[in-house]
């Protein structure tokens, strides 16, 4: 009888927490990290979904509703998604968690194409360095615990597991790039989003400076980049998943560089794609870059 | 020699209008071949509407009309409304379009045809104006050019809507003389006019229209004081409370 009663109590207590914590993240990468850390105790929604472009996001009324109903709102910070902070403020001052708190930021590259949305002086793409994402995950875990104290042990356990996975990934990427000679480690991308990756893993990303994906391009900038490609014998150029590929293909064709696969900079791919989770994305990017450098 | 009952145009209970109000009611008349007919009447009498219908731009709401000549042999000169004078086209090019039936949409103008255009321009008194843009012509000159184009169409039935509106008297006289030449060439002409003096001088036949046919026949018999007085009493605007018209049914009984 006592055992039955204890079981019932246990069943009741778990069912009391059956309703998951509502988490809203600004974009797919943060959403994925939140899901890994939060597990079953959270229901995560990304405002900018896979293959979406958070730079040009226009908020909709449904976004405001989601933010209002959410228990935890997660933004990247570093000027990437100030629109979410504004939205949260206007939707009733839910405190927004900045995932990048504590990350050592890089300065914004001078010629970065802002897509009409000013990031400000800092480069926001901190997640391109896996080590930074370990900090992200810690910050997100702290926020989840603050909103859901009862799940603390659960979150800590999941964080530990994820952190180990990230640490292994970080070391792996580091080691694979270190195995290559320095002059080989240079590539061109059309979007200036890989500064953190380059700094962390020792790859020189020649940004197609002034040749961003959406702004109007000057012939001088294109000529400059092509000359540089020819001079430095850069082997490969990459297209990203939110860009019009024609420009970068032309640059590659004339600069004597191959067009490599697709890199994922600001968003995950769809669930069937090669970058369906953050870890998959980083692995894919690393594989693709390496394959491009030495096929 | 045409058959004795050859006609250029016959109207059978022709009724034209807009939105149930008739502009022209129950018109029944026959224009013989080679007639030179003036259509007169007060403003709002339906004269322009009649010509529009014969030219094929308006559908009758009751009755109909029959053409005594093939449709391609009918030429229509509307009032000047739709012409865009700011368009960069020369007098020569505009007038040469009258030869459309011969050269079509793509044909080039043969030297003989170009000469014909020039000769026609000379006949209407526009020699030397060939290369001027049409926007620089005066009202009278523009009307001469339109007449020249009409002539080049070489039609058997010509419909002219107020051809001498706001035109200087010299041009009017010159163009009226040309109309008489056409008449002499055996063409049928129907012209809407306001100048009774001109009508009496130049047009042997006349149709007095005041929504309905008040008179049709030799000009002297139509332009009488009694008929003209009747025409003048015609209401100009549509009457919202007018009863349904049964006139034709009554006449047939």
């Amino acid at each position, binding site marked *: 009888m006592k055992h039955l009663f204890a079981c019932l109590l246990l069943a009741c207590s778990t069912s009391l927490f059956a309703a998951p914590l509502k988490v809203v993240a600004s974009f797919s990468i943060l959403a994925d990290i939140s899901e890994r850390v939060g597990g079953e105790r959270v229901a995560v929604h990304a405002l900018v979904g896979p293959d*979406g472009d958070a730079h*040009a996001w226009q908020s909709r009324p449904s976004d405001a509703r989601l933010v209002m109903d959410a228990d935890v709102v997660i933004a990247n910070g570093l000027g990437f998604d100030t629109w979410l902070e504004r939205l949260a403020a206007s939707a009733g001052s839910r405190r927004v968690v900045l995932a990048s708190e504590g990350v050592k930021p890089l300065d914004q590259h001078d010629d970065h194409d802002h897509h009409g949305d000013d990031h400000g002086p800092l480069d926001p793409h901190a997640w391109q360095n896996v080590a930074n994402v370990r900090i992200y995950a810690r910050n997100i875990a702290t926020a989840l615990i603050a909103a859901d104290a009862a799940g603390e042990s659960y979150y800590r356990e999941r964080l530990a597991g994820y952190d180990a996975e990230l640490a292994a990934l970080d070391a792996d990427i580091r080691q694979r790039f270190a195995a290559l000679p320095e002059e080989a480690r240079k590539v061109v991308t059309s979007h200036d989003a890989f500064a953190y990756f380059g700094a962390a893993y020792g790859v020189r990303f020649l940004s197609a400076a002034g040749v961003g994906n959406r702004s*109007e391009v000057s*012939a001088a900038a294109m*000529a400059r980049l092509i000359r540089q490609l020819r001079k430095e014998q850069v082997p490969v150029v990459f297209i990203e998943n939110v860009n019009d590929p*024609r420009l970068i293909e032309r640059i590659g064709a004339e600069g004597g560089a191959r067009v490599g696969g697709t890199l994922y900079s600001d968003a995950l791919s769809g669930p069937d794609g090669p970058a369906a989770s953050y870890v998959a994305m980083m692995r894919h990017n690393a594989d693709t870059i390496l394959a491009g450098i030495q096929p | 020699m045409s058959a004795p009952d050859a006609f250029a145009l016959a109207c059978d209970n022709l009724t034209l209008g807009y939105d149930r109000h008739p502009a022209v009611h129950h018109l029944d008349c026959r224009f013989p071949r080679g007639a030179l007919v003036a259509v007169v009447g007060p403003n709002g009498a339906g004269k322009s509407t009649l010509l529009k219908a014969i030219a094929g731009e308006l559908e009758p709401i009751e009755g109909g009309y029959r053409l005594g000549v093939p449709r391609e042999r009918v030429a229509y000169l509307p009032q000047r409304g739709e012409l865009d004078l700011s*368009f960069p086209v020369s007098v020569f090019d505009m007038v040469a379009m009258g030869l459309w039936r011969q050269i079509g949409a793509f044909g080039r103008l043969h030297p003989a045809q170009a000469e014909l255009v020039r000769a026609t321009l000379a006949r209407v008194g526009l020699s030397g104006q060939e290369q001027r843009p049409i926007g620089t012509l005066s009202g009278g000159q523009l009307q001469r050019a339109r007449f020249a184009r009409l002539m080049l169409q070489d039609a058997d039935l010509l419909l002219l809507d107020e051809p001498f509106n706001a035109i200087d008297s010299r041009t009017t006289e010159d163009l009226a003389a040309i109309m008489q030449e056409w008449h002499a060439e055996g063409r049928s002409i129907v012209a809407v006019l306001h100048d009774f003096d001109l009508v009496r001088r130049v047009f042997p036949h006349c149709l007095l229209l005041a929504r309905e046919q008040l008179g049709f026949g030799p000009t002297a018999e139509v332009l009488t004081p009694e008929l003209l007085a009747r025409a003048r009493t015609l209401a100009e605007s549509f009457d919202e409370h007018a009863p349904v018209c049964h006139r034709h049914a009554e006449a047939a009984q």
Partner: protein
Amino acid sequence: MIELFVSPFTDFEFMRRALAGCLALALGATPVGVFLLLRRMSLMGDAMSHAILPGAALGYLAFGLSLGAMTVGGIVAGLVVVLAAGLVARSSILKEDASLAAFYLMSLAAGVLIVSLRGKNLDLLHVLFGSVLSLDDGSLLLIAAITSATLLALALLYRPLVLECFDPSFLRSIGRWSPVAHYGFLTLVVLNLVSGFHALGTLMAVGIMILPAAAARLWVKNLPAMLVCAVGLAFASGLVGLLGSFHLDVPAGPAIVLTAGLAHILSILFAPGGAFGARLYRRTHLEA
């Protein structure tokens, strides 16, 4: 000298392609623009850039981010809007401008709705619109083909089109060319605009269509000369704009359009048809 004018083109293929693209656009779109101008439809280009959205959206829904599918979709949507507008203008009391405005707005709204149904925030039109510096083989082929078709159609339709512009009632009275000229012309406009958007972006496509035509209008008084003048101005703007973009490091599309704009301003100031034309070209008058 050579360094300034020739070597950018000899050194870089993208510059050669851009120049070829400008030439094609000048030959195809600019004459169409002259007629648009004369028919008082100059603002149509901007309207069309919005009207094609539902077609591009449907192409995207069906085939994903395929430029081919979206361009074809855009052409179909553009044709539907333009032909429907023309039909309504001819058969109702609405004039062409009102009719077109009505349809392009409906089309744009439909397009926004369709895009939002998918849920993804993809700035479709930005993906669809190209840039003069990134002309790949497919794009070059597209504008070359449209240009050839346009030149052929204009040569064939020249007379009916001119008549349709300045004396439509006469054209109606001599046959059934009126709808052919009208709809044929509208089709040419859509084809040139959409292929222009695809290859070169909206700014350049519309800019090169209208600005040289507006400038040429101020200089010459007869239509054939106006067409030649406009095409020449268009190509010159392309050339000068590209060189400016190369040597002064300014974006290419805007540079080309601003060059055409500069030509227009100069025309307003100095041409016989311009603001000061009467004063500048005063000559003693003749006897008769």
